[in-house]
């Protein structure tokens, strides 16, 4: 099956800076693909190249197998939901949605019917005659998506459309976007710097940094099996240390942090040699808290220390544990209640499996 969207060794150069560097990926039909990266990583540049607002310096963009090079934006079978939605303020909702259909030269009755249908589908029937500035944030969002979807594009591009919404609404829109995508059964390409948006909605995520794709995979892959130090640090929260390799034993390595803590870890990516500088990542929720050593017998990493800080945040509460050498480790507090009485200064033991720890050779 030909992918809906395929980029081959895509490059974009602005003057001396290479904004996008040899990026290749393909998006299967009907899937939700996200590009996740910090601001300035080049994700918007990729999106604008797909939409046709920028001409790539090198490489090819194919939509349903057809090359899009030298095709102007108004002739591409892609539509874009802009960051600030860019609804036309001079038109009402129905005219906004009908704009593309009018441009396509459809008869009036057909436009009215299609606009009605799509409003029905986004769950806002009968708002066609409203002005754009009378809508709430979430409604605008849905109208912006409807305005594109009514044209039945092969690929819908979304440029951080949830950025301007408040937290509660953003959480709801995430779920709504995902179900809209399933309802329209269209390929969505979504760019964001918010990892939770990408993790929740996407079938495939590409993590981007400095103009290159660091890793492409499912949310699980990125979270549990990051391939580079950047992905490990960018996706999810981590305890992060710099250390040197003390011992290499097959797939496990023992590392010592700068402070002197010994950590056993599985090696990831390129094989590490003894004495090499490395970066170590450990997720706070992978650590078990216990009051005595017997509970932690199955773990190859065990540390005892004192609680230096309590970070209460409801279900996501954490503690900071200061170990004997003075490293602070962030640990997610289990919600079963047994540590509800833990207070600052209390002695605790923590342990984790070496499989849960990842380390990467330090770059540069």
């Amino acid at each position: 099956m030909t992918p809906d969207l395929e980029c081959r060794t895509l490059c974009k150069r602005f003057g001396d800076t290479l904004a996008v560097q040899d990026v290749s990926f393909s998006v299967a039909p009907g899937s939700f693909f996200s590009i996740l990266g910090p601001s300035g990583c080049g994700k918007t540049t990729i999106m604008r190249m797909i939409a046709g607002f920028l001409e790539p310096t090198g490489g090819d963009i194919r939509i349903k197998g057809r090359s899009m090079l030298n095709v102007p934006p108004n002739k591409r079978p892609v539509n874009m939901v802009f960051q600030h939605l860019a609804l036309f303020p001079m038109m009402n909702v129905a005219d906004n949605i009908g704009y593309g259909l009018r441009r396509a030269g459809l008869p009036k009755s057909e436009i009215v019917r299609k606009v009605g249908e799509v409003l029905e589908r986004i769950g806002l029937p009968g708002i066609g005659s409203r002005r754009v500035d009378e809508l709430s944030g979430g409604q605008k969002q849905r109208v912006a998506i409807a305005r594109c979807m009514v044209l039945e594009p092969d690929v819908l591009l979304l440029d951080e459309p949830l950025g301007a919404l408040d937290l509660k609404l953003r959480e709801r829109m995430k779920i709504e976007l995902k179900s809209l995508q399933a309802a329209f059964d269209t390929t969505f390409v979504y760019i964001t710097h918010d990892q939770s948006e990408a993790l929740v909605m996407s079938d495939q995520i590409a993590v981007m940094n400095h103009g290159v794709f660091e890793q492409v995979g499912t949310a699980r892959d990125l979270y549990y099996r990051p391939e580079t130090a950047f992905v490990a640090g960018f996706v999810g929260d981590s305890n992060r240390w710099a250390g040197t390799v003390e011992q290499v034993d097959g797939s496990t390595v023992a590392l010592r942090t700068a402070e002197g803590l010994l950590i056993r870890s599985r090696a990831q990516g390129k094989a590490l040699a003894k004495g090499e500088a490395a970066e170590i990542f450990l997720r706070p929720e992978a650590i078990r808290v216990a009051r005595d050593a017997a509970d932690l017998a199955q773990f190859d990493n065990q540390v005892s220390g004192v609680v230096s800080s309590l970070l209460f945040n409801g279900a996501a509460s954490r503690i900071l544990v200061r170990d004997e050498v003075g490293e602070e480790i962030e640990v997610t507090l289990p919600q079963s209640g047994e540590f509800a009485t833990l207070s600052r200064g209390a002695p605790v033991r923590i342990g984790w499996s070496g499989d849960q720890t990842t380390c990467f050779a330090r770059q540069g």
Partner: protein
Amino acid sequence: MQSQARLGFFLLLTPLLLWLGLLILIPHVDMALLSLRERVGVGQYTTSLANYGIFFGEPLYMWTFLRTAVMSVLATVITLIIAFPVAYYIAKMARGRTRSALFLLCLVPFWVSELVRTFGWMILLRETGLFSSLLQWAGLATGPVEMLYNDAAIMVGLVYTSMLFMVVPLVTTLESLDDAVIEAGYDLGGSGLSVLREIIIPHAMPGIVSGSIVVFMLSLGNYLTPTMLGGKDSLWFTELIYSQFIVRFNWELGAAFGFMLLFLSSVIVWGTLRLTGQTLERTMG
């Protein structure tokens, strides 16, 4: 506290009230009274509409009146057509220094007095002027060509004088149009022309209307440019007013002419606003 605030309010309001009262209201009331006065003998006056009767009874006055209106409307339309692409380029395409430089270029002619600017055009357009010499040199004309003292010369002068007053409001409104909205127009299948018609022009409408009003009024009330570039027989309504006041010393008729001009500009501005569905608050606010 309350009374102090009120005192401050009146103190701040005073200059405005003085301005409106002394410079606009009182002279106009005086002019209105003057226009309704008819001289029946030496130093003897009665109140009548005779001055307005003279205006409507003399075809030359009416003709000049309409000609001035049509020419001003035409000058406004030409200014708009030339200024729109200029403003669009400054607001949407130029960046950083280029943009301020271009804006400054629009402003530069206004550092010179209108009189000198108009003389500049006379130097270019007169029989022995630059254009005439160029045409002769290129072999396109056999003898000297007189380009002054016709309607085209008046039009050139009016458009040139008004350009800035059209560019500024247009740049301001076009700047407020989000680039993403224009891009969305293209993205959803619009061509350049349809994006211009459905998105850019509707958005720029308040700027277009306010610029047009200003340019229209400036053209209608212009005296210098039509007189200098159009010559003595240019038939501009302000010239009639001038001659009644200064040459003929018939202040009564001059005042009546002045009120007819005020009436004309009010009617045309009101009509334009109604026609474009704009309100004065929206275009001027």
